[in-house]
């Protein structure tokens, strides 16, 4: 009150009105202050760069000279005049199509075994999850490079059984296989998701099935798999997106070359080579956009096909 009198003409009612207006304004602004870091991040280092990269994909740009508009040239060259690019597509597709289903099959099989009232579950879960945690690190890639090399652990084991080994990573026929093994080895994270989902399957379904005399395989086929199908789809999409973008293992195992004979030239590795060692930033941008489209199409196709095999409870 003393304050109001000191301000003279401004009565208590007027003061109440301004403070109310101020409160309303504060409430309107508050959400944006919370969102401010995200907004800057979104506009300045996501949306802006995204549009810029789309523009760059239609240019020739080396960072040394201004970007030069070339229209669709980069895209045309990718598919008609760059055998290395086609190799990188082939390698990546094989990697995704072989390693992801294998990885999910392992994940589901182990989750099924671990699911029913087993003691020490958390210990097993940890052991099997551990490789997922470190699988993408350089340390493991280094280990893989030694394991599958000509003096490596794999050959030492084979030698123990009297089988003659070879340099698995030096042979174009087998190099990609070693990276597939590495990806399958990290089946732990989809396994943990499967385990959580298996716990949600109602027990009475199995009891009813047992009354009907359905065997174990039948129960798996007609109860577990349909009940789990949304989670299978979820894991499939997640792991495929991850596999399309794999980089570190191929880079380290091949010493950055993608060799031997382009057999481990992952898409992202070739993109890196073009963009950051060849400084063909426009060309690499076009590659990035094709990758984006491929991932979007594959994800959409997964959803589209899912209506034939995924069952939702409703």
């Amino acid at each position, binding site marked *: 009150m003393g304050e109001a009198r000191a301000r003279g003409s401004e009565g208590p009612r007027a003061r109440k009105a301004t403070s109310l207006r101020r409160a309303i304004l504060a*409430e*309107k602004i*508050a959400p*944006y202050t*919370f*969102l401010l*870091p*995200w*907004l800057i*991040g*979104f506009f300045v*280092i*996501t949306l*802006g*760069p*995204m549009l*810029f*990269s789309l523009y*760059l994909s239609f240019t020739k740009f080396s960072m040394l000279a201004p970007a030069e508009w070339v229209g669709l040239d980069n895209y045309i060259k990718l598919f008609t005049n760059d055998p290395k690019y086609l190799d990188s597509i082939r390698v990546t597709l094989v990697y995704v199509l072989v390693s992801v289903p294998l990885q999910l099959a392992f994940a589901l099989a182990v989750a099924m*075994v671990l699911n029913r009232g*087993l*003691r020490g579950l958390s210990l*097993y879960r*940890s*052991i099997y*999850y551990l*490789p*997922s*945690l*470190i699988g*993408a*690190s*350089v*340390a493991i890639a*280094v*280990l893989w490079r*030694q394991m599958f090399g000509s*003096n490596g*652990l794999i050959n*030492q084991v084979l030698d123990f059984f009297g089988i003659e080994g070879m340099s698995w990573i030096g042979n174009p026929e087998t190099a990609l296989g070693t990276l597939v093994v590495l990806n399958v080895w990290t089946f732990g*994270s989809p396994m*943990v998701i499967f385990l*959580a989902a298996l716990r949600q399957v109602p027990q009475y379904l199995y009891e009813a099935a047992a009354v009907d005399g359905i065997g174990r395989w039948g129960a798996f086929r007609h109860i577990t798999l349909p009940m789990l199908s949304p989670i299978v789809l979820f894991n499939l999409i*997640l792991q495929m*997106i*991850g596999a399309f*973008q794999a*980089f570190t293992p191929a880079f*380290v195992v091949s*010493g950055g070359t993608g060799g031997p004979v382009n057999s481990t030239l992952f898409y*992202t590795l070739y993109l*890196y080579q073009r*963009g*950051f060692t060849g400084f063909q930033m426009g060309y690499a*941008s076009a*590659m*990035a956009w094709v990758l*984006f489209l491929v*991932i979007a199409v594959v*994800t959409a196709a997964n959803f589209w096909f899912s209506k034939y095999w995924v069952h939702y409870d409703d």
Partner: protein
Amino acid sequence: MTTEAKFDQRTAAMTVGTKQSIARSSFKHTLLIAFGLVMLYPLIWMLGASFKDSEHIFSEVSPIPNPFILDNYVRGWDGAGVGFGTFMINSTIVALLSVIGNLVACTLAAYAFARMQFRGKTFFFACMMAMLMLPHHVLLIPQYILFANLGWVNTFLPLVIPKFLAVDAFFVFLMVQFLRGIPVELDQAAKIDGAGPWKTFFYVILPLLKPALATSAIFTFIWTWNDFLSPMIYLQDPRNYTVPLGLNAFLDASGDSAWGAMFAMAVISLGPLFGFFLVGQKYLVQGIATTGLKG
């Protein structure tokens, strides 16, 4: 038949049943342990190899080092030009700042999305969800150009600043999902008690977010610690290298001759990850199970 005899018969049947189930479960355990050992064998072997001299690394399947030497650790720690200690410090700085950035920025954004009303909310939320799907590689080149123009190349800024701007949409999403499980009545009660949005956020929401914060912190740490591509693009001076770059430089510089030292440093580089794994195991597993994070 007397009741006693019936009882005997039943217990006999039960023991047969338990015996069978014990046999079955011990078979299962044996299988699971054997499979686990095969899976972990490369890691165990690498740990052993880090204490072997090079002659034994290339001739032994057994992980037990004989003779047991520490020389690999000494040589590795000093090796690769700058010294592995520097790489460890660099990685720690980058990882810890990334954790702080992600926790602060993603939590704030998630609170706005989950609890507040404002113009453009639906649009921005859709943008956030779209960011989840965007491959990192689309942004790689333009971000490099942006940060190069800012003079940030060869500093930690390009690795850390984006985290303070909540570009890891995954954690925003995770926390929005988590906030949806916390009753709105709590916020409303705080508002009636006269708390503003910031007070509500700090005193009501933040304490309840602990599990989501822990999951985000652990995964941010692990992903930054393992990250190879971004540091490779931005860090050129070996004195600024993070651990993965240091390890890779080691591989280039010494070829196949220094496997022992390399394995020793690989073991050290995995150390902090194992530490987080042991401490945060509960949150880690919950985090993956409920949100489907990729490890």
